[in-house]
Every structure is written in C-alpha cells, then in structure tokens.
C-alpha cells in the first residue's frame, strides 16, 4: 500500500453517517436477497440468476464492509491523547466513532454471511 493512501485514509472524517455504512450495507444486501428470492420464486418459480448475481452482490457487500472496517480501524488508532480515550477532545471523539464503526463492521460482516448461508444450504423455491 502506498504511504500516501494510508495518510489519506487517516484524513477522512468519520461522522454519524459513516457510522451507519456497514449496517446499511447489511440492510441493502438483506433487502435485495429477500426481494430477489421472493420475485424469482413468485415470477419464475426458480432461481434463474443464481449463483452469479447473488455471489457478486455478496462479495461486493462484504468488500464494502471490510473497507469501511479497515478505515475505521486505522482511525481508531489515531495517535494523540492518552488512554482511556474518554475525554472531550477531537482525537477521542474520532477514536470513539471509529471504534464503534469498526465494531459495527464486524457485526455486519457476520450478518451478511448469515444471510448468505441459507442460499448456500437451500437452493430451491419450496
């Protein structure tokens, strides 16, 4: 990885909106999985698009979650104020939001895999 890239990541700003990116990705993936299954079962009676579209979608979702988790990880280690990082400073606020985002990314990652499991285990419309 180029050193410049890492620095640019460090300068990105976490906000309340970026906090909800990983679970938002989970939600979109979940919704699309559900709609895709419901529509293809109702309209075609089978999963004509499986597995390509679904696999790509899942990989993309996991990818976005990983990237946002990684950005959050880098930011959650922003150097500066002393531990326990509970102060009202810029750095501590940044570290808090980044840590929460990182944790959410982990949860969302598991969530997306959970959603993908049924598709792997069951593959018809009964």
């Amino acid at each position, binding site marked *: 990885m180029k050193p410049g890239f890492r620095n640019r990541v460090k300068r990105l700003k976490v906000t309340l909106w970026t906090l909800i990116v990983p679970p938002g990705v989970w*939600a979109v993936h979940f919704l699309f999985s*559900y709609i895709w*299954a*419901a529509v293809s079962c*109702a309209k075609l009676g089978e999963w004509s698009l499986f597995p390509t579209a679904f696999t790509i979608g899942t990989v993309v979702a996991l990818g976005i979650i990983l990237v946002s988790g990684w950005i959050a990880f880098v930011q959650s280690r922003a150097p500066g104020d002393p531990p326990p990082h509970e102060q*009202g400073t810029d750095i501590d606020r940044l570290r808090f939001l980044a*840590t*929460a985002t990182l944790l959410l990314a982990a949860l969302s990652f598991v969530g997306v895999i959970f*959603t993908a499991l*049924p598709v792997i285990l069951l593959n018809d419309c009964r």
Partner: protein
Amino acid sequence: MSLHAQDDPDLRRAQEERLRAVWKPPEGLFLRWTDTNNNRVGVWYTLTAFGFMLFAGVLALIMRTQLAVPDNDLVSANTFNQLFTLHGSMMMFLFAVPMFEAVSIILLPQLLAARDLPFPRLSAFGYWSFLIGGVFVSGSIFFNAAPDGGWFMYPPLTTRTDLSGLGADIWMLGLSFIEVSSVAAAVELIVGVLKCRPPGMRLNLMPLYAWYILVVAVMILFAFPPLIAGDVLFEMERLLGWPFFDAARGGDPLLWQHLFWIFGHPEVYIVFLPSIALFAMLIPTFAQRHLLGYPWIVLAAVGTAFLSFGLWVHHMFATGLPKISLAFFSAASEAVAIPTGIQIFAFIATLWAGKVKWSTPLLYASGSLAIFVVGGLTGVMVAVAPFDWQAHDTYFVVAHLHYVLIGGTLLPLFGGLYYYWPLITGKKLSDRMGRIAFWIMFVGANLAFFPMHLSGLEGMPRRVFTYPAELGIGGLNLASTIGAYLFAAGVAIVCLDLALSPTRPKGKRNPWNAGTLEWLALPDDEDWGIRSVPLIESRYPIWDQKDFVKKVDEGRFFLPDAEEGRRETIITTVLDARPIAVIRLGTPSWKPMLTAIVLGAVFILTTYHLYMAALFAAFATLAMVLWWLWTGTAEIPEKPCKPIGHGLEVPLYLSGPSSSGWWAMFITMMADATAFSGLVFGYYFFWTIHAEFPPPAFPGPGMVWPMVALALTLVGWAGTIATREVHARGKVTLARTLLVASLLATFASLFAGLAGPWQYAMNPEAHVYPAIVWTLAIWTAVHAGIGAIMQGYALARSLAGRMTPTYDADIRNITVYQHFLALTALVAYATIGLFPAVA
C-alpha cells in the same frame, strides 16, 4: 459576563428571579393544563401510561380468572376476544411505547442540561393526542364494542364488516391517531439529542440513555409508518370496500401481515431498548464507576436497531412463504442475539469491576435481566422455523412474549421508577416495600408464565377462552392464574408505595451519588430546568469535573439569565456540540391541546362514519396548525445575537440544516416517505402474486396524465429551490413571483395526478389493481396539496414581513418538503404510469 460577575450574590439572585418568572407554570384550575414544560407534560404522560398499564393488567386478571379452571364460564368467548385484544393492544400501544416517550420527555432535557426540548408545544400536543386516543380505544370495552381481532388484527376476519364490528375501526383509527403522536414525540426526541446538547458534550460524551433515545426514536420513525400505511389500506377496505386484503378481488391478507410485522418486530426492540438504557444509567451509579465498553454499547444499540428490521417474517413462518425467505429471517433473528448479548455482558463486566451497592433499583435491573434472558432463549428457539411450526399460536408463544416483555419492559421500568422517583419528587421510595414487591413480582411472573411453556407444548392454543378438562392442563393453568394474582399483588405494593410518597419528607439532592447531569435537579425543583448550561468535559461530570455542581448552581456556565424575559435554550452542532445559537421556546398555550382535540375528532368521527363532520374537523385541524405555526415558529428576534457568557455571542435565529426546525421537517418527511414506501411495496407485492399485473381486464391510468403530473410537480419543486436561492440573494419580489408560479404548478399537479385514474374510470371496488393505483395517486395528490399550502404559507410570511432574506427559515423548511414531494411523485407516477408498460 465574566466569571467575576457571577461572584456577586445580588446579581445571582436577580438572575434567579428572572428565570423563575420566565419559567413560572400557568396556574388555575383550567390554565394549568396549558402547560408545556417538559417536567410537567412528561409527568402527565408517565402517569397516563401507567394508568393504561394498570387497566390492561386488570383485563389480564379477568382473563386469567376465566382460565383458572377448565370449562369455566365467567366471561363469554366474545368478551374474552375483546379482553385479549385490548390487553395486548393497550400494553403495546398505550403503555410500552408511550412510556418510553414519557420518561424520555422528563429525562432528556435534564440529561442534556437543556432548559427544555426544542419543541415543547409538540410534546404537549403528543400528550393530548395520546390521552384522547387512549381513552377512546380503552373505553370501548365498556360498550361491548372493543376490538376483538387480536393485537395484530389479521384480515380477512377483521376487514369483513359482516364478521367484525365497530371494534376494528376503533382499533385502526384510534391507534393510528396515537401512532401520529408517537412519531411526533420521536421527532422531538431526535432533534433534542442531536441539537440541544450542552456545549462540549461531543458524541462520545453523550450519556448512554441519550444514545438509546436517539436509536429508538429513529426506529419509531421507520417502524410506525408502515403500520400507518397498513391502517390506511385497512380502513379503505372497511369503509369504502377497496379490496386490498380480499383474495376474491385480487387482494391478499398477507400484505397486512407484512406491513404489520415490519412495524411489529422492531416494536419489540422499541420497547426493550429503553429499558436497557435505564440500566445503562443506573448500573454505573451503583457500581460507582464508568460503564465499561461505551463504544460496545453504542454498537449494540445501533446494530440491534438495524437487524431488528430484518426479522419481521419470523412472525409469518407458518404462512407458507418459500423456505428460502423464511431462512433469511431466521438467520437475522439469530444474528440479533449477538448485540443483545453484548449489552448484557457489558453490564455484567461493569458490575464486576466496580464496588457494587445492592440497592433496590439494581435488584430490579438484575432480576429483570434474568427473566429477559429466559425469554431471549425461547426467542432463539422460536426463531428456528421448524420449531416455530410446532409452537406457533400456542401458549408457548404467550410464555415467550411475556418473559421478554415483563423482563425487558415492565420490571426494568419499575427499577427505573425506584431509581428516578427521587429525581422527580425529591423523595425516595421505600426500599423495604420495593424489595418485597420485587420478590413477589419475580415469583409471580415465573409462576404465571413458566407453566405456559408446558401448557403450550401440551397443545393449548393461544386466544382460547376455555379448554376441556380432558386436555390435562388444568393444573398448569391454575398455577398460571395464581402467579398472575401474585404478580398483581406485587404491583399493588408498588402502587401503595407511590401513594405513601407524599407523606414522606424530602430527601437530599443526588441521593444515589450518581455522576450524570440529570442529578443536578434539586429536591425542590425549579422549573427552569438548569441554572446555567455547563461545559461538559466528561461522561460523568458530577464525579469528574471540579466544583461542577457549585459552578452550575452559581450560574458560572452559559446562559445563566433570561434578560429578555423569554424561555431559551442553547442549540449546538451535531458532532461536537459547539454552541451555535440560542432559540426561544414555546410558552404555555391552548393551541396544542385544541389541535389534538380537532385532530382526534377527525379520527373519532370517521369511526362512526360521520364523514361530513370529519371533513369539517380536518379543516379545523389545518386551520389550527397554520395558526400555531404562524404565531409560534420562526419568529424574527428583536436583535440578531446575544451573549451567553464567557465572551461567547451567538445568533438568536437559525435557518437551514443547522436549525432545529429544518431537522424536524427532514425527520418528519423521512417518516412520511417510509409510509409511502409501504404503499409502493403494496403495489409491487400485488405484482408478485398475480401472474399478470396489471390485470388485462382492468384499465390503467395511462401514461400521459401521470407524466404531466410528474412534470408539474418537478416544476413546482425546481421553482421552490429557485425561490430559496433568489430570496437569499435579496431579490424579494422576484422570489415572490417565482413562489407564486411554483405554487400554481404544484397545485395543478394535484389535479393532473388524479386525472389519469379518473379519465379511465378506474373502479377501485372492482379489483385491487385500480384500488392501489388510486391510493398512490391520492396519496401523492394530497401531498401536492399540502405542498401548495406550504408555498402559500411562505408567501404569506414574506408578505407579512415575517420572512426576510436574513430570516428565511420558512422557505428553507418548505424546500425540504418539496424535495420529498418530488421524490414521492417520481416513484408514484413512474409506478402507475410507466410500470404497466414494462411489466
């Protein structure tokens, strides 16, 4: 004001007198009910919700008495249906959700050291709506007219007017009215948390309760609107015969189940998370240390909120959906156990690491967690589809849901009651009575609900008014009944404790030695909320910041005065809580109550099919709202800025995204858009269940009129944006002209939108296709009408000199509305106009 000035006791006394005068509550037999101060409205709200809980509890006792022995005939089957429906509906809609909002209305300003919430009159409006709707719904049982379709009111039994009476309308319309007030409260709470924090309280220093309020209020915003959309369809079917849920005419009862449970499952977390929030406040106090894992708790709250929207179909496992769909929801249902577990572990860890004081509130907290965990475990069981097929609609489910609700909502609230009573009254409740009551309730709850797991597995269905002796479940049921009475005895002791409270002496301030801001309240409460708004540097300022309480009391922080004789509070930025303005708050007024009364009349009159009167009431509501807004919002201040102490001077007026009004509009429209997507979901849902949709036998609205309507809406939208920009540059006359043109375009789009279905004589009673097209068209047209009224309002404000290029909140707020209107029109008209061509 420098620090020196506050050293002068005379100045401080003068400030206190001014504050006291400004915040003086209205007095007198009638006038006192016009109050809007969060302290008082919150207390009314709490007491009312508590009263509804007791009432619903009595209904439960009647049911348990009926079920005590086999073949009992204390109440008839019909009455029993009304009892369980009203019990369940009241507990959920009139107790659990409003109670969260009520408690938050009391606590939030104190937690955030705000003088009040940003829209005190909106809170009062919410309260009066709640009271009117609640009395209307619960009173129906005395006229043998209560709803009887179960708390989820499944069609077709409930939509067929030959099979169900007025009760179904009372449920739909009465509770819709309350849903509106719940959404109103949610808007208030979100804006409160985001914009009314004290300076320095960055996101990472926010008390966890505020985090939970934010999360839960956002959940309400996305969960209630689908139900409102469902209610709309439901009443259209009942009152007008539009066949949304009638399979004979192309409808489908499952659509209701989807819409209901998209609301219904998040609802479970909406009533559970606030209790966890109470724990997050009281556990650090009794462990006398900071809560461990603050970001973990935030993760858990946000994670639960998201996941909870992916669970709704687990209530529909037995409806014959494809297994793959069931499996998605089963997986998400198991995933949600992760964040729930994390919160509980964070609490255990905190207790572990601290020096625990086993107080009464802590006893309630830990006891209810134990009960909740049992419910959580059976929840994991019923989330597995094959198990659920066995247990569905049996008493096993009744046991599960009561473990969750009693452990996750009711008992934690009692814990919160013991913890926060001193904050509100200045007096502690009796520890002894509290503990006795706790143990009685704890034993009672388990005795009542544990046997239900077994009677359910033995085959006792839920919602039966009696059972034969041969089934061999008499003993289990008798145990449940005894348990229910024990539980009721415990509740009675709590009530007695509350009743004795006025006879007890006042205690000391901050009796539990807590570290968070709300405990700044004095035993003899002042109505001003907080003496001066502090600068926050820690999550537990009372513990960590030097001389904190003294400095607040001596007015050494911000806004220690009310020089202009106005009620005020500080507005700060979302992330870092930098002070950016002082806003003037609403004062006591009749308007909120009157508006609630006329709006309530709309719903109640419609229930009795008095449509003309209802229409009249609707116009009265519109007039009331306009009057309220005209006189009470976006007021131009007498000077642009004012000093708030420590050399800081901030504006008295905000407009655009930094203002609270803009956020309120934005948030309300998010809810509105969610309701709309519920309707759109209906359209595409019907498309999936029909081989051909739109059905060839029924004409559509054509393409032309929908496209004309869309174009007109977009013109109105672009015109409003142009108005805003031109106006901000000082060209007032041009802005007014543009606004008139936009108004005309928006208004014309109303008629163009309806013209399509009208021209092709689409008959909504014939089939679900014309019905859903009409619904989308009417929804959009009504929104265009409201948009036009708003444009007219902004024009009038400009002409009346109440809106100027510097003070332009009105035009900025209505532009937000226009964005959403344009989006609604885009989706609606593309759906009804273009989709038939591609389907």
